[in-house]
């Protein structure tokens, strides 16, 4: 890191902080913390991925081969919780830490010490989640949605999950406060709101969503906790409560949460596509308004997750139409990305491959979402593999592909070395192919009626499931290639120029590669 920069950044950064392990424990530097978040996220991605492969191994053939049904339910639950709260969300916070100050010309995050706290809350939460497998009764098996009355009856593993959620929620809220304050108060002179890179915009809106809904989740799991141990009956019908109410409160959090996991992905793709089309982003302001509309609409669609609980037809219609309305701003975004590519001088380096793959496959997930929004169809497809296919198309092909794209896009800036382009492309194609081998057949098994979260299935689903399992193991192994590419890029490789990509725009490309430990101590002026 030391030798690589000579553009007026030559002072000794290492004088300011301890070395070795304590450097990482005590760091308040946004780049260090971003790196920590990204590595934490990757390790959780591996843990959640191993759980997924354990699920797929059981589902390779009909019948019960490997796991007891109860343990299978623990696996589905923990796979969901770890991937959502441990892998996807921290990865985006890692991007925000690295990139937001660099992109708006700020020297660091607004609250550097709180930033350190936000990160270091996560490993204890992860330890709570993982160790809950080993307490009596095992980990919570209530599904990642923790529906009452299942969640009010589970063993102590449920309590550990609740505490983990509390801790991760606190971490997210602190991180969001930091991000909002940094973006609103610390932009370089001349960087007006409507000049901010779209990644910064999407994170600003995401951070507001987090502050609005993470406390609601904390409230919901607190109610579960008091129902379990302190004699309240929020969700216990016998005491005047209602388990359906848990679903309402959970999804009031849960639906904005879905957008928390996709809006930063939109932001990353909106950075990558213009860079490799060598054209400015088409319809910048409409992108900002579309992002805001998606965020606002996310608060009034939650009940489409629970059409089957029994609600008046008028409510079902309202939630159905409101849900379909979201397709409009989302369509604006997809249109704008394609219009950005139109007549551009496109090249297809790995980040662009992932961005194009994102647009293609995410749109398929969006369309299956529209199918599921139609109430009568949803009542048929509720809790089938069609739903599993839908949300993996938007979460894996959406969020995760954008994360991969973002890593390849900014990795040369972070490490100062170019990654191995050939291996990056191989990683993309393996990921893309195995992703579809895994999840595309789930559409068919779901339409044919295969229920989710069940370890056994009827013989008619055997072929589709075998295919899905083969795809899943291929997908998992492909990610080892990603780890290899990243590690070799950190260790060495061709020297990256300051402006790594010919068409890239933004302040982060004006600092040397690798980005020095301290940047923009004198704010740049944006014209």
């Amino acid at each position, binding site marked *: 890191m030391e030798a690589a920069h000579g553009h007026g950044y030559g002072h000794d950064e290492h004088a300011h902080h301890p070395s070795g392990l304590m450097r990482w424990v005590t760091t308040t530097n946004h780049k260090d913390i971003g790196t920590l978040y990204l590595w934490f996220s990757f390790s959780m991605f591996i843990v959640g991925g191993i759980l997924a492969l354990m699920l797929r191994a059981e589902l390779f053939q009909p019948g019960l081969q490997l796991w007891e049904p109860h343990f299978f339910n623990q696996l589905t639950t923990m796979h969901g919780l770890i991937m959502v709260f441990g892998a996807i969300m921290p990865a985006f916070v890692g991007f925000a830490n690295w990139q937001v100050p660099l992109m708006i010309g700020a020297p660091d995050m607004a*609250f550097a010490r709180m930033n350190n706290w936000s990160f270091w809350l996560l490993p204890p939460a992860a330890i709570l989640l993982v160790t809950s497998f080993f307490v009596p009764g095992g980990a919570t098996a209530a599904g990642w949605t923790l529906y009452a009355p299942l969640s009010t009856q589970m063993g102590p593993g449920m309590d550990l999950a609740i505490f983990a959620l509390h801790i991760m929620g606190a971490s997210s809220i602190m991180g969001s406060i930091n991000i909002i304050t940094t973006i609103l108060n610390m932009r370089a002179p001349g960087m007006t709101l409507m000049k901010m890179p779209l990644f910064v915009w999407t994170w600003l809106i995401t951070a507001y969503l987090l502050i609005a809904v993470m*406390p609601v989740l904390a409230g919901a799991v607190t109610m579960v906790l008091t129902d379990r141990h302190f004699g309240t009956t929020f969700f216990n019908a016998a*005491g005047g409560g209602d388990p359906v109410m848990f679903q309402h409160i959970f999804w009031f959090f849960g639906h904005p949460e879905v957008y928390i996991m996709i809006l930063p992905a939109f932001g990353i793709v909106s950075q990558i596509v213009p860079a490799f089309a060598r054209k400015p982003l088409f319809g910048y302001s409409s992108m900002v308004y579309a992002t805001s509309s998606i965020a606002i609409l996310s608060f009034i669609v939650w009940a489409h997750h629970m059409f089957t609980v*029994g609600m008046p037809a008028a409510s079902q219609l309202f939630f159905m139409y409101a849900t379909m309305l979201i397709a409009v701003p989302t369509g604006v975004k997809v249109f704008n990305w394609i219009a950005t590519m139109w007549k551009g001088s496109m090249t297809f380096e790995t980040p662009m491959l992932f961005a194009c793959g994102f647009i293609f496959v995410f749109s398929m997930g969006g369309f299956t979402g529209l199918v599921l929004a139609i109430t009568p169809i949803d009542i048929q497809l509720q809790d089938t593999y069609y739903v599993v296919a839908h949300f993996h198309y938007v979460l894996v092909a959406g969020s995760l592909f954008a994360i991969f794209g973002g890593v390849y896009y900014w990795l040369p800036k972070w490490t100062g070395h170019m990654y191995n382009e050939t291996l990056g492309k191989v990683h993309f194609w393996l990921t893309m192919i195995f992703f579809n081998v895994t999840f595309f057949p789930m559409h068919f098994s779901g339409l044919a009626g295969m229920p989710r979260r069940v370890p056994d299935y009827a013989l008619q689903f055997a072929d589709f499931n075998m295919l899905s399992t083969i795809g899943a193991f291929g997908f998992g192994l492909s990610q080892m290639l990603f780890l290899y590419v990243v590690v070799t890029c950190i260790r060495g490789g061709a020297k990256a120029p300051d402006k790594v990509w010919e068409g890239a725009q933004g302040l982060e490309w004006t600092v040397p590669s690798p980005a020095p430990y301290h940047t923009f101590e004198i704010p740049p002026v944006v014209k």
Partner: protein
Amino acid sequence: MVSNVQANNAMMRKLVIVACGMFGFGFALVPFYNKICEVAGINNVAKADAVTNTQVDSTRLITMEFDTNLRNGLNWTFRPLEKSVRFHPGELVNVSFEVKNNSDRPVTAQAIPSWAPQVAGRHMKKLDCFCFTQQTLQPGEVRRMPLVFVIENSLPDDVHVVTMSYTFFPVEGRNGSAG
């Protein structure tokens, strides 16, 4: 730079207040939800209904079967005095259930109704039911409890059998009258 720190702290205070407010909002959803259910008439299984039409349709007969359950280790005996009854739609029906507390301490429990087919629920009007209140039984106590209801004429023609199921849940903690 000092002004920047002050501005940042002011911003943090505002955002912390919003976060705390939203935590409270999560809990405020509970009375809000109950109010909506009350206004919309959803979920009022534990309240007496007003019967508007008691016209008896003597051309058809409905069979109602009773199912009784106990949950969460409740040491009671719970049975209907008649396993099933046959009646005409619109007729006032009066049946009884019996519970006995087999444990050696007073226990409070609440019965929760369920029924099949779903469509019957809309046409079933209860005038009196043991499920409207919590039942507290002393050790060894036996109690006969009424269920008085009308199934209205509006019940679709293709429904001939309705199953009513009651499940007693023990009520513990501050919401139960027996601690």
